[in-house]
């Protein structure tokens, strides 16, 4: 299928990109990985007048740790994360996510920041960013700003990025040795949108109690959600199966999915519960805490 015609801009600097975005406003779309946008354009469901291709912008493909944060530039591809031994060994949650987004070929193009900006209701990265308490760095005519992920993700397909602005970086807190996470996703097959998925991050105190927990669920509501009640239930407690059951139950409670071919609302809600439970068990296991 052939997309509708559009005007193509290929800025060579961030300034140039921002000036295009300022000029064309809502008519323009940023093209990063394009793995959601281009198929939508091929179906002519998306017909942007202008595409601002940021792939030639210098210095946006970095992955670096800085000030206690892992910073991923806007052109970091999912495979950059997936194939990184450092990320695999220390960032369990985002490593898990990087292996199940879309399919292996799509991941070579798809970007982490692009996925967060797209904010698809089934987005994998959004759930992970919520659980890991990520932040987004945004550039615009007014300069730079940083938003915590909960403020950044506004609604399905909507973020706090204003007209003329562009997200340039996502930041994940560097996990310490007592922190681990996991991403549990069920999909009907590789490449399908999740039927339900849960991102979980747990930090333990030296005494084995849970210091902090982050739980995000996706594909089970209008957008990825934080399961705050579950986090509260876990915080300060010794991890037991009972506790995990109680926390997971909170995911079911707040999930509010649409029924579709992937499952009924009832099924998806239950899967939110099961997957949060499984994520917690797996994350704890990675910290050598066996709950069963």
């Amino acid at each position: 299928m052939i997309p509708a015609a559009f005007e193509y801009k290929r800025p060579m600097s961030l300034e140039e990109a921002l000036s295009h975005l300022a000029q064309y406003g809502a008519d323009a779309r940023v093209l990063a990985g394009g793995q959601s946008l281009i198929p939508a354009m091929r179906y002519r469901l998306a017909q942007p007048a202008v595409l601002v291709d940021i792939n030639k912008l210098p210095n946006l493909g970095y992955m670096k740790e800085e000030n206690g944060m892992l910073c991923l530039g806007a052109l970091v591809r999912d495979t950059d994360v997936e194939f990184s031994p450092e990320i695999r060994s220390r960032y369990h949650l985002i490593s898990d996510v990087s292996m199940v987004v879309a399919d292996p070929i799509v991941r070579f193009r798809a970007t982490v920041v692009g996925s967060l900006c797209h904010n698809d209701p089934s987005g994998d990265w959004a759930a992970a960013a919520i659980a890991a308490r990520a932040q987004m760095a945004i550039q615009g005519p007014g300069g730079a700003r940083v938003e915590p992920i909960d403020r950044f993700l506004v609604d399905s397909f909507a973020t706090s990025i204003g007209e003329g602005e562009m997200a340039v970086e996502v930041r994940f807190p560097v996990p310490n040795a007592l922190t681990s996470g996991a991403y549990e996703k069920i999909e009907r097959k590789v490449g399908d949108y999740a039927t339900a998925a849960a991102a979980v991050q747990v930090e333990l105190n030296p005494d084995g109690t849970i210091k902090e927990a982050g739980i995000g669920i996706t594909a089970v509501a209008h957008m990825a959600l934080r399961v705050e009640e579950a986090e509260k239930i876990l915080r300060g407690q010794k991890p037991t199966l009972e506790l995990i059951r109680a926390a997971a139950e909170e995911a079911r409670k707040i999930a509010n999915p649409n029924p579709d071919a992937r499952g009924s609302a009832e099924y998806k809600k239950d899967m939110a519960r099961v997957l949060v439970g499984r994520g917690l068990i797996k994350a704890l296991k990675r910290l050598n805490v066996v709950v069963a």
Partner: protein
Amino acid sequence: MEITLKINGSEKKLSVEPRTLLVHAIRDAGLTGTHIGCDSSSCGVCTVVLDGKTAVKSCTMFAVQAEGHEITTIEGMAQGDKLHPLQQAFHDQHGLQCGYCTPGMIMAAHVLLQHNPNPTEEEIRFGLSGNLCRCTGYQNIVKAVQQAAQMLQQPAGAAADD
């Protein structure tokens, strides 16, 4: 728009619309080994290699985005009449039937082996899960990739007698 890119080692200047998909540009340049099978970035029959180590679905990239990049397609795999080990292995292991997915599958496997030269069966199945095949049930494709991995790891010339 005029774009310049390298396809299979030789520089090409192509005239395209911004909306021209890379796969159409490649095919219109006479390299019809790269196929089209869907509109949703699902099937992977259009998979080509971008800059040596990256596999992309060429239906989900605009040709203008390939400006200045290097594309490798199935036609660039053999050296003269010497098949690439993956091509040889797909033949040896009956890793193809109708042949339509084969070019994309070989390109995906080519990139997979660069990132993981000695993959397990599970890793091959995982790594090729962005490419659909309707004929083979994948089993012989997996065997072909295993054979190619072995061939690629053998020192040159030691192939025949070990």
